[in-house]
């Protein structure tokens, strides 16, 4: 949590965050800007491989917000 807050605070302090209006979110609606693989089945398969071959699991990000266009 400390790292998360620190990162967002850093961005805020630098004035990096803009108030992007809904009509300015065309890029955010692109499939390439979607979190995770563009193909959910590929992502499923890949996660299984990592789970099978590596000693850790957990922490994969939930979808979160994106373009806010749904």
């Amino acid at each position, binding site marked *: 949590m400390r790292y998360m807050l620190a990162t967002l605070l850093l961005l805020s302090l630098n004035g990096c965050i803009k108030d992007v209006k809904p009509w300015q979110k065309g890029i955010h609606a692109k499939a390439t800007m979607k979190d995770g693989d563009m*193909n959910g089945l590929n992502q499923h*398969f890949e996660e299984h491989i990592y*789970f099978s071959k590596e000693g*850790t699991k957990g922490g*994969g990000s939930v979808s979160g917000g994106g373009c806010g266009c749904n």
Partner: protein
Amino acid sequence: MQLTKLSLITASVLLASTAQAEDYVRVQYMQYNESDNRVDVIAPAIEINKEFGSDYTLNIKMVHDSVSGASATYSDTTSGASVYNRGVVANPNNINKANVDIGDDRNFGSIGLTKRFENRDELTLAYSKSYESDYDSNTFALSYLKWADASKNRSFDASVIYQDNTILIKRCDLFNYACSNSDALSGASSEQESSLIHFQLGMTQIIDESSVAKASIFYAKEEGYLSNQYHNIVRNGNTVEAERKPDERTSYGFGLKYFKNFGKFTTKLGYNYYHDDWEIDAHTFTFDNYYEISSSLTLGFGLRYYTQSEAEFYSANPNFFTTQTLASMDEKMSDFDAMTYKLSLTYTQNETLSYDASINYYDQSTDIDATYFSVGVKYKF
């Protein structure tokens, strides 16, 4: 077979894909091949995503995995190589790593429903089931996405996942584990249980018209039978026994992501930190890129680097374990790193049909390296 089990569906997969607001059917063929013909997996799959008005999305996935091949573990070869030759003091020359057949089929299905409220906050409920001859897994997931501002530039999300697993252990009498089933003492199969609960909090912030940042933290707790029944250890250099991992595992970590679009080019950077009380620390770096060659053709390429430290109860040395209760020679518990090289192509034929293909190479600093590829078609309706 549990040795190469591909059954845990993580939060990202179970909850991430349900929020897409479009109707489609996707059919995919996926294949995984390790070098030296060790493990091969063929996995046809189908996904259906259906909108009901503008407030509900239903997502269904089904996968059938067919696993074949062999995996190496220590065996007492005095009377032939069998993973179940355990507990007998043997000539050290007869204790060798031998391949164990790991052929099995797995059926997986998941269903997720997303509800959008008037303020467009999202609630997602999901369930998945994975079934193999020796493993049955049921997962329940719940997540909530909260928009924090009127422009929907910032959102918070929270999720909880609960998983219940039943493992069918063969030859429990030869097992370094307290079999609760009395039948197991006669050598019959015994059922063991394990469970996982996973909490995650996340935040997504749109930075400007072309970039977005995400951050998340997670906490997970596993309990029950967490060992692998097909993995052996060597004790005193002369006796093969089943491995024994702890019956509990607590883990936590965080993740950071940053996506940036440069016209036809999009790049995604990611980092994940993981720590657990088995003393494993892991770092994952991802670098994914997409280039829109034309309006119908998108090229994807990326790298993933993963590194972990070894668990406190792991050793690769056959002379290491003497009286320790917890002991594993499972290479997944070792200190290693891994690199994945990714390449993909997506072709959109028209508004309803698109095709994709990907090929990936996975190289671990242990002796594992593998190629996996995927081809599929997506039909929007």
